[in-house]
């Protein structure tokens, strides 16, 4: 028996056992990321994954590429610095809805606007899971299961795709962890896209949001082909309930990559700190 398959997704998995709850959607993101990397046959030394804090931000520990588990909300800032210094690397950024849209919200806006060539995967389960289930920016206003918000957050939820579009992102997609292969395909397109690619992964939290098991009956593919027209994309995103999946918007705009003209040696840096 022979095949011409060069790499298996397993090649990109570490030996570290995920601590996610059994049933967590994030397992499917891990599967999708490794399938995408295997398809693209990217050498592990040429890929870096950066994350913030939260359940989803554990991802770099489980993917066998360079990893940086950063501080809360700062994954995109760290990743931007990395991409600026090492433009040849494929930079993946992972995090959750709390990390990315609350404390990291400002970085999200400017990462979209800057359009550096990196891929941001947000595992959106509409809850802070690691701290035992509080409302996040994408939580519905009437979700009343947390003692911190006994009557629900009471404010409209954040629409990540709309914010990404308004901030200038050039690639906006939404996937679902109940369809890991579809998510893998989206990630391949996102990684291949020249510029900032944003992938919102609907990833049910089995522990704090068990009702999200129903998402499998609600999620469906976008009926329309992706558009490159931001006005049309805005209309579609606003008209959607946030449960349609696929590539929503893709445009070609200049990628921002600072030129590293000055190279500083370590001894020069050290001299600068001498007292």
């Amino acid at each position: 028996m022979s095949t011409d398959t060069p790499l298996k997704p397993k090649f990109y998995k570490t030996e570290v056992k995920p601590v996610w709850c059994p049933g967590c959607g994030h397992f499917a993101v891990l599967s999708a990321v490794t399938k995408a990397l295997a398809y693209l046959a990217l050498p592990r030394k040429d890929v870096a994954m950066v994350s913030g804090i939260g359940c989803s931000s554990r991802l770099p520990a489980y993917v066998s590429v360079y990893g940086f588990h950063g501080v809360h909300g700062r994954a995109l800032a760290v990743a931007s610095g990395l991409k600026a210094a090492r433009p040849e690397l494929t930079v993946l950024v992972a995090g959750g809805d709390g990390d990315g849209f609350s404390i990291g919200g400002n970085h999200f806006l400017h990462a979209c606007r800057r359009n550096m060539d990196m891929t941001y995967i947000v595992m959106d389960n509409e809850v802070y899971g690691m701290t035992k289930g509080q409302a996040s920016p994408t939580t519905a206003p009437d979700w009343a299961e947390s003692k911190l918000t006994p009557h629900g957050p009471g404010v409209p939820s954040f629409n990540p795709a709309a914010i990404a579009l308004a901030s200038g992102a050039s690639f906006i997609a939404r996937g679902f962890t109940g369809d890991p292969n579809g998510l893998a395909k989206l990630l391949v397109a996102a990684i291949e896209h020249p510029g900032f690619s944003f992938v919102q992964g609907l990833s049910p939290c089995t522990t704090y949001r068990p009702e999200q098991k129903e998402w499998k009956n609600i999620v469906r593919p976008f009926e329309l082909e992706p558009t490159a027209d931001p006005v049309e994309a805005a209309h579609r995103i606003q008209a959607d309930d946030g449960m349609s999946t696929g590539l929503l918007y893709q445009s070609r705009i200049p990628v921002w990559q600072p030129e590293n003209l000055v190279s500083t040696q370590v001894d020069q840096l050290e001299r600068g700190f001498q007292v």
Partner: protein
Amino acid sequence: MNAKDPQVIDTLAEFMTHAIALENESVERYEELADSMEVHNNPEVAKLFRKLAHFGELHAREIKSHADGMTLPQILPWDFKWSTPEGPESGPMQEVHYMMNRRQAIEYALHNEEAGRDFYAAVAENSPRAEVREMAAEFAAEENEHVDILKSWLLNLVDPESVRPEDLDPPNIPE
């Protein structure tokens, strides 16, 4: 997402690639679940998933032996002709829970085996090639045996399984 309805598999090589992927992915899923249950201190269910992974491994080996000497095509994960989001025997991840008991775990496995059997049965019915239909019918019969084994496990299970044990670290604590 993969198609809801079974698609036609034309060649024996294509069929064997599907069968091998089905079994391999199933083994990986059970290994992943076993690891996960160990991490979450559910050793009985972890042991059960590990056992299922072992049986899956044996079956995968047997399936691969049918493909000896064949050149198999590379099929991308999203191009497999499943009618389920993943391979039919890779059960939905969202259907497990860290407090699940052995009965629930066997029921989960039973669902997976039935889905595998149904996949092979559909190929046995729909493929235009006699050799594919024949091999698929053989695999469907094997899966049916696995279904019967799991049903017997359920019948022989003696533990009081209907109630989950108390969760000493419940998800929603007062803040």
